[in-house]
């Protein structure tokens, strides 16, 4: 095997598959990245039995072949190379990587029992890469990180005709995003549950891709897979087991008061006021008239308050939130204004974006946030 490849192309291709490297492999071959050189293309792949990654990279292949090398080492080496053509060749049981004046040799791993990667499931539809990346990042922020509740570490994807609904919750907040996509199989209604971390990384890496194809394995099959493909890169992931809790009934249909404020103004105030407290100590908000008062800290501890002017309609309300969760919600909005809708101080608030102060709320993204309650 022998080929020459552009350093940046190689780095992108290796970076994509490196996400699927196993960290605690049940067999050492899963620590490797498989490189197959064939007719002007490199095919890179990695697989941790749950997530598989494949990428194709254009290269000048003078001699075809397949090797398996340590994934971690390859990532480190490629990252450190100068921006020059990279020559790779197999010398006996070692692979040489030569770039400019730098030269590395790394041993090959036995590829004999390397598992077969799952096929990309049949395409269900497609969506623009940047839209997909934004939508995923907006909901992934609300996903749980606690492995003792595995269902909540996932993003739920619900497909119905040309509408795709993404949702995630850690029980304290719920983020829901609806996007339009191109459905190739309009007859199917399907849903999938994918680890939020995996989906977030993949969507982020596909941000610059014009169209991302999404594949779903047929329901009822033995393997429940979802796949993403775009511009020579493919990722498949096994879906999480379990049933995502029904959440649509949690979205309140009405509210008793609504506040509108510029996102940046509110974020700055939240950041300043929560300086005095630990991040799990509540931030208290009082809405009335056309002012919002933010307070943090009690009793003997350091305290902070700030008042900002807002547009407010409805019954005055006092409510307390975990400042981190509130900031996460504000950060996720694409618009410059946020609308906060309340029903009661023990009930969830709904954050949604507004492009202008007076415009209607954008309902494509909603972030439900449960308040905190003080002991009596």
């Amino acid at each position: 095997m022998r080929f020459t490849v552009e350093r940046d192309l190689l780095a992108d291709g290796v970076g994509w598959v490196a996400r699927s490297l196993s960290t605690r492999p049940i067999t050492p071959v899963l620590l490797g990245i498989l490189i197959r050189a064939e007719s002007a293309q490199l095919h890179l792949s990695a697989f941790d039995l749950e997530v598989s990654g494949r990428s194709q990279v254009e290269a000048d292949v003078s001699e075809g072949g397949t090797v398996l090398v340590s994934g971690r080492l390859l990532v480190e080496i490629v990252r450190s190379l100068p921006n020059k053509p990279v020559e790779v060749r197999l010398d006996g049981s070692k692979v040489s990587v030569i770039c400019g004046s730098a030269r590395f040799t790394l041993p090959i791993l036995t590829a004999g029992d390397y598992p077969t990667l799952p096929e990309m499931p049949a395409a269900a539809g497609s969506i623009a890469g940047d839209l997909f990346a934004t939508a995923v990042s907006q909901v992934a922020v609300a996903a749980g990180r606690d492995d003792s509740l595995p269902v909540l570490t996932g993003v739920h994807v619900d497909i119905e005709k040309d509408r795709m609904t993404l949702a995630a919750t850690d029980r304290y907040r719920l983020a829901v995003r609806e996007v339009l996509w191109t459905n190739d199989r309009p007859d199917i209604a399907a849903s999938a549950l994918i680890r939020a971390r995996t989906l977030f990384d993949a969507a982020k890496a596909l941000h610059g891709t014009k169209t991302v194809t999404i594949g779903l394995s047929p329901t009822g099959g033995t393997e429940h897979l979802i796949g993403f493909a775009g511009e020579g890169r493919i990722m498949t992931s096994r879906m999480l087991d379990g049933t995502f809790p029904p959440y649509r009934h949690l979205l309140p249909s009405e509210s008793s008061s609504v506040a509108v404020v510029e996102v940046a103004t509110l974020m700055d105030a939240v950041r300043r006021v929560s300086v005095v407290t630990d991040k799990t100590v509540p931030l208290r908000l009082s809405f009335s008239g056309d002012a919002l008062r933010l307070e943090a800290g009690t009793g003997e501890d350091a305290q902070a308050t700030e008042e900002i002017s807002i547009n407010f309609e409805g019954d005055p309300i006092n409510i307390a939130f975990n400042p981190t969760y509130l900031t996460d919600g504000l950060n996720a909005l694409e618009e410059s204004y946020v609308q906060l809708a309340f029903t009661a101080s023990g009930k969830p608030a709904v954050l949604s974006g507004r492009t202008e102060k007076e415009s209607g709320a954008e309902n494509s993204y909603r972030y439900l946030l449960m308040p905190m309650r003080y002991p009596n």
Partner: protein
Amino acid sequence: MRDETTILHVDMDAFYASVSIIERPELRGKAVVVGTGPRSVVLSASYEARAFGIHAAMPVSMARRLAPQAVFVEPEHERYAEVSDAVMEIFESFTPLVEPLSLDEAFLDVEGARKLIGSPIEIAKRIRDRVADEQQITCSVGLATTKFVAKLASGHCKPDGILVVEKLETISFLHRLPVSALWGVGGKTEEVLKRFGLLTISDLAHTPVETLERALGKAQGRHLYELAWGRDDRKVVPNEAEKSIGNEETFARDVDDAEVILREILRLSERTGHRLRLRELKGRTISIKVKFADFSQLTRSRTLNEATNITQEIYAVAKSLYEGLNLDRARVRLVGVRIEGLITKDEVATQLILGAPDHGWSELDSAVDRASARFGRGALRPARLVKPTE
């Protein structure tokens, strides 16, 4: 150094054994040993049992050989914690300066309480009366001008006694004791001192401090010399809030069955949750400990977003930590569950949960706690913890 004996060391007499006897008066006056499993050690023994040579930390099997007629009882850790809390509360009604050393002993500084309540000895008597009246157990109190002499004094009047070591008696009291009575003199140090022919505290006190510093190292040599002359300026420091609460259990036989281990983890989670709720605490960091047949051990912990004292939440985390170990039928000797990062309940605002019913695990736990208070521990417990024969 103070002139009056305002430092008290209060030590419960055979604490665990005495607590076990409270509810079983028929055991009073008998040799009672706390600890039953063939592989456990004796946690406590009544004075009647000690007469047979049984002492704490001795293997239960050996205690059974020494006194086959003794009554061996199961430890009741929740009860010990409850009685200990009650006793510490009694201490705190006399002075805020209470430094608990363990569940069953504490230092008290009653300097400031003299005007309000009376002389130190008067206070000591009243403490002993109240502990006996309210908790039906006895304690011994040592009074001195320093912490370490007070502790020695309580040890010398056990059980059920009071000993005052006045300032002027301190030296003569100390000097007839063996060096091993000094704080910080364990087996190794004792060996060294013996080689120098120093057997009593008097011997040590009459050795040039430079010699001691050479033999034991600068800090320890100087420290022991000061103690030998009754000089100890350590203050009684009220304990900071408890840092962690946990329970562990040694299996009667090494276990490799995950089902059995998880059931034990559930039981320990329940105990830990119960103790947290008794003290009105919540914690954020949950850890498990697993000790294997070869005595090697692992601990794993996870910090939650929200502090909890709910049994099922503690169990869910402990279970996932255990499963994360991916043990392949390894033989397990002991498991433990612990919770840290404790805060009192009123300090914490609760993060409400989306779509949670108005009544949940938290209400279940308080119902269990109420049933336990009324009908005894374990009156109400998860079905998995009920033995098939019950």
